[in-house]
């Protein structure tokens, strides 16, 4: 087992309670803001995904705990590059032939490498706007052929896809001292490996962050507490398995994501819960119950 539930809960509690400092930005996706030239940022985010509303009758219950470690670097004032290293602990409970089975594995997942380039930059006193393009690739670093005593694990439990999957999109950020708005359109083309390909993912995200505290300024740079509300509209195509579409995969989901963010000069601590409000999935595709995200960022 990688990141156990007790350890994750400790991290979650630390993220919620630790006194801090750092930058604003969406919690469930990235902003258009780039790093300053020569600046590094490290972001650690724990993600608990729970799915259990199974229409298939197999009483499937899937739980994934991910620890996402992100390192970013500002090449110059317009270009930043990032690497995301996931550590996953995946588990699927399913009833087969009257027997309850647990399928699980843990380890390094697929590393994502991407760059972001500011194409529109507007600065005003205490306000800023950025429009950025980003592009990258998800590399097949995660094990995609894990087995247990029941045989090969299903694709949804594997640590990696085994494929090289390019992605890209556009993201805009408007930031003031009082609030920040971010919007993103993104697409990931999932390619085939081992005669299997996950459906492509298209998503539209929006984030609104409002400064709750301090209400007034008295000089200097105080820490900011933001209330956060995000929306994530995600469409995934059907998986492709041995030349045929899997009619029980993919579909459309809309999540609403309330959260809190504490931002200082060097640190951000943040936590949010993604709650599904619309799930129009294909066939017996497993529905999401919730996703919890908590973590921190530090720049140096």
């Amino acid at each position: 087992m990688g990141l156990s539930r007790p350890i994750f809960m400790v991290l979650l509690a630390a993220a919620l309670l630790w006194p801090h400092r750092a930058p604003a930005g969406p919690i469930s996706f990235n902003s258009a803001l780039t790093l300053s030239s020569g600046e590094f940022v490290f972001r650690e985010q724990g993600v608990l995904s729970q799915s259990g509303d199974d229409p298939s009758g197999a009483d499937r219950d899937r739980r994934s705990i991910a620890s996402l470690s992100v390192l970013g670097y500002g090449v110059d004032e317009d270009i930043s590059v990032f690497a995301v290293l996931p550590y996953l602990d995946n588990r699927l409970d399913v009833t087969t032939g009257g027997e309850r089975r647990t399928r699980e594995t843990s380890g390094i997942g697929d590393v994502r490498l991407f760059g972001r380039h500011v194409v529109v930059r507007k600065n005003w006193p205490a306000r800023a706007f950025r429009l950025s393009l980003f592009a990258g690739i998800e590399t097949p670093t995660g094990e995609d052929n894990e087995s247990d005593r029941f045989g090969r694990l299903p694709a949804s439990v594997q640590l990696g896809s085994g494929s090289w999957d390019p992605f890209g999109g556009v993201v805009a950020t408007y930031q003031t001292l009082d609030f920040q708005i971010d919007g993103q359109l993104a697409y990931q083309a999932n390619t085939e490996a081992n005669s299997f390909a996950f459906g492509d993912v298209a998503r539209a995200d929006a984030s609104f962050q409002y400064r709750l505290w301090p209400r007034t300024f008295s000089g200097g740079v105080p820490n900011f507490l933001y209330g956060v509300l995000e929306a994530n509209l995600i469409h995934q195509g059907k998986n492709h398995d041995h030349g045929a579409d899997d009619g029980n995969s993919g579909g459309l989901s809309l999540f609403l994501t309330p959260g809190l963010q504490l931002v200082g000069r060097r640190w951000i601590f943040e936590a949010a819960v993604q709650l599904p409000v619309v799930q129009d999935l294909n066939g017996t595709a497993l529905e999401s119950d919730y996703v919890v995200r908590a973590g921190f960022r530090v720049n140096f």
Partner: protein
Amino acid sequence: MLTLRIWAILLGLFIVPAFAQEGGATYDLGINGLSCPFCSYGIEKELSRIEGVEKITVDIAKAVVRVRMRGGKTLTEVVAKKAAKDAGFTLRSFAPASPK
């Protein structure tokens, strides 16, 4: 006469050292785009790379960064403008700081 001496001693003890602590030249930089605490670290880091910078103080609400130089060192508008650009911001104004 005694009162004057006492005042002179007090001046020597408190007021003169207070001015001495001000160090070298001080500048107020108006920075556009500075709109969150995290941003302030970026501009602080860029300005701190400039030779002779002794202290940087950000007032985020006023979008003003005060830069104090070590004795004898000066900051030019061209250098300040480049630091702001490298941090992703725009230099709005540049002026020697007015004494408080």
